[in-house]
């Protein structure tokens, strides 16, 4: 990975952080409706994972999808506009925070029913296998999703059919407000892959380079025909499950402890310690990211609402 690539990833992580901080403000001002699930604290996971993919590799995730969208190459403008429900949003204002997608960027959503996108990921991978394409499908989901039937049906099928899919469990220690230990029979989620005969790994997801290196290795193995792989990435969300979470299930000291391990700070240090870029250069990236996000807010606020005709568009392809 060269300097420009490092700076690009760093910029994306800061962009995600700033974009979500602004989104939280806009939510509190009533400009964003519905649910808003922030990814703050988990940025290194999707940034590292998606940096390891090739353009033909598909990405699908759950509802905590803003960061994944940015990493997949969606513009901050199209993400912010979607959060504000505008016609210029990536789903033209019909999806909202939980349903971001851009098929042209091989980002297949943004799925809001816990676990439901795992069988779909198996299907995306089946599509590539059937067509003889060499794409790998990267499917991200939370620890909570591993307790639902979908997980088991999809992971089993992926092994039975030797599908080119990378299962990535983002274990942020809580399914909403319930700790992994209170909801899952095993607290190391990677153990669940053992029962399906799938090679599995468990890493900490605060260091973007560690995530990238692991993901790259696994994606290469899958692309070479090795079949599915399972990667558990232990991470932590600094904010509540969604906006308006009273966070009775954890102490602020715990949150502060994890915040000391901020993935953006860790990456900054890595870049400087290795002489990849200077502090000034990183600060310049911070400013650039800030400017992109500021512009996205202005873009979204000045964008038109979807017209009434949009209500009846895209129910079917064929009327």
């Amino acid at each position, binding site marked *: 990975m060269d300097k420009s690539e490092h700076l690009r990833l760093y910029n994306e992580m800061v962009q995600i952080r700033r974009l979500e901080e602004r989104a939280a403000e806009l939510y509190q001002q009533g400009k964003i409706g519905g649910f808003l699930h922030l990814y703050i604290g988990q940025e290194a996971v999707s940034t590292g994972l998606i940096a390891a993919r090739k353009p033909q590799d598909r990405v699908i995730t759950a509802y905590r999808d803003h960061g994944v969208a940015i990493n997949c190459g969606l513009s901050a403008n199209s993400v912010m506009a979607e959060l504000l429900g505008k016609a210029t949003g990536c789903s033209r204002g019909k999806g909202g925070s939980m349903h971001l997608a851009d098929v042209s960027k091989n980002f297949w959503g943004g799925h809001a029913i816990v676990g439901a996108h795992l069988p779909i990921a198996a299907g995306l991978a089946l599509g590539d296998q059937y067509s003889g394409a060499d794409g790998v499908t990267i499917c991200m989901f939370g620890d909570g999703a591993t307790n639902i039937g979908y997980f088991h049906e999809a992971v089993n*099928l992926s092994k039975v059919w030797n599908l080119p899919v990378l299962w990535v469990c983002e274990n942020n220690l809580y399914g909403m407000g319930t700790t992994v230990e209170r909801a899952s029979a095993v607290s190391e989620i990677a153990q669940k892959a053992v029962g399906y005969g799938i090679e599995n790994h468990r890493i900490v997801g605060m260091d973007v380079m560690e995530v990238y290196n692991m993901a790259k290795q696994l994606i290469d193995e899958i692309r070479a025909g090795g079949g599915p792989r399972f990667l558990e990435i232990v991470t932590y969300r600094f904010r509540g499950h969604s906006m308006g979470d009273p966070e009775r299930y954890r102490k602020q000291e715990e949150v502060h402890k994890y915040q000391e391990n901020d993935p953006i700070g860790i990456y900054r240090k890595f870049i400087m310690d290795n002489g990849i870029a200077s502090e000034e250069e990183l600060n310049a990236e911070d400013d650039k990211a800030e400017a992109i996000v500021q512009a996205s807010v202005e873009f979204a606020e000045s964008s038109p609402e979807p017209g009434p005709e949009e209500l009846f*568009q895209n129910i079917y392809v064929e009327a």
Partner: protein
Amino acid sequence: MARITMREAISQAMWEEMERDQSVFILGEEVGVWGGTFAVTKGFYDHFGGERVKDTPIAEAAIIGAALGASLTGLRPVAEIMTINFAFSSMDHIVNEVAKMHYMFAGQMKLPLVIRTVGGGGRQLGATHSQTPDAIFAHFPGLKVVAPGTPADAKGMLKAAIRSDDPILFIEHATLYQMRGEVPDGDYIVPIGKSTVSRPGRDVTVVTYSKMLDTSIKAADQLAKEGIEVEIIDLRSLRPLDMGPVLESFKKTNHAVIVEEGWKSFGVGSEVAARLYEEAFDYVDAPIKRVAQTEVPLPYNRTLEQMALPQVADVVAAVKEVLNG
């Protein structure tokens, strides 16, 4: 044109589409080596191979999810859910993903997906294996739901469904596979979302579909002997629901009976009757009648099961009732 069974008609449609288009493939429980639990895909595995005739685990969510995902990549999967009763295990996928993804992502994703399944009672399979929950599935915008009642329609509509870019639930009836009928050879297409006049008549409109089409025809034969001319409209598609021929017929006969195999409450008959009252109230000469399944979980015992299912005599009685007031 050949006189073949419903089973052969459905099989023929899939075979021809798979020969025509490499992107069409089948997946489901026992569709391959076994040849299909209703023998619809017999011979497919040997001819097309395991890559295109994919046996799955008994895991309905995985079946629908895999088919849905594959359809997003441009393939045209035909997923078989062994019976519609098991579709409830994939109900979340069908209503929350299949029916919504095209709309929710503003047209970015297309789902050229067919879900073939089998409904209906009458085979003494008990309450969990005998349901006709078609109306439930027809409730959701974004999904198309069809249920042919003749071999010709089965072939033509299945071919149309496979070629469609929309997700379509294709409901067959467990007791109709042996039914014979004239079916055009080769490329025969019946459009999705079009109801049709199955039998012309001047006195009363009977609106029905699937197995109850046959029941209604038998009732009409009996009534004809008594001088009552029944016009039968076969809905064929429940969503989109084509009320055109229904309204046209009703405006002529001013009397209607709706016959369905599912339960009456919140059913197909409720919907059609409501639309007739909304759109043709001035033409109503008598209260519209609904014939439907008795509202019990279907029992195993043959006599009790048949008591609960709508019979020819029920249709005959309902027609006489609407005509005689």
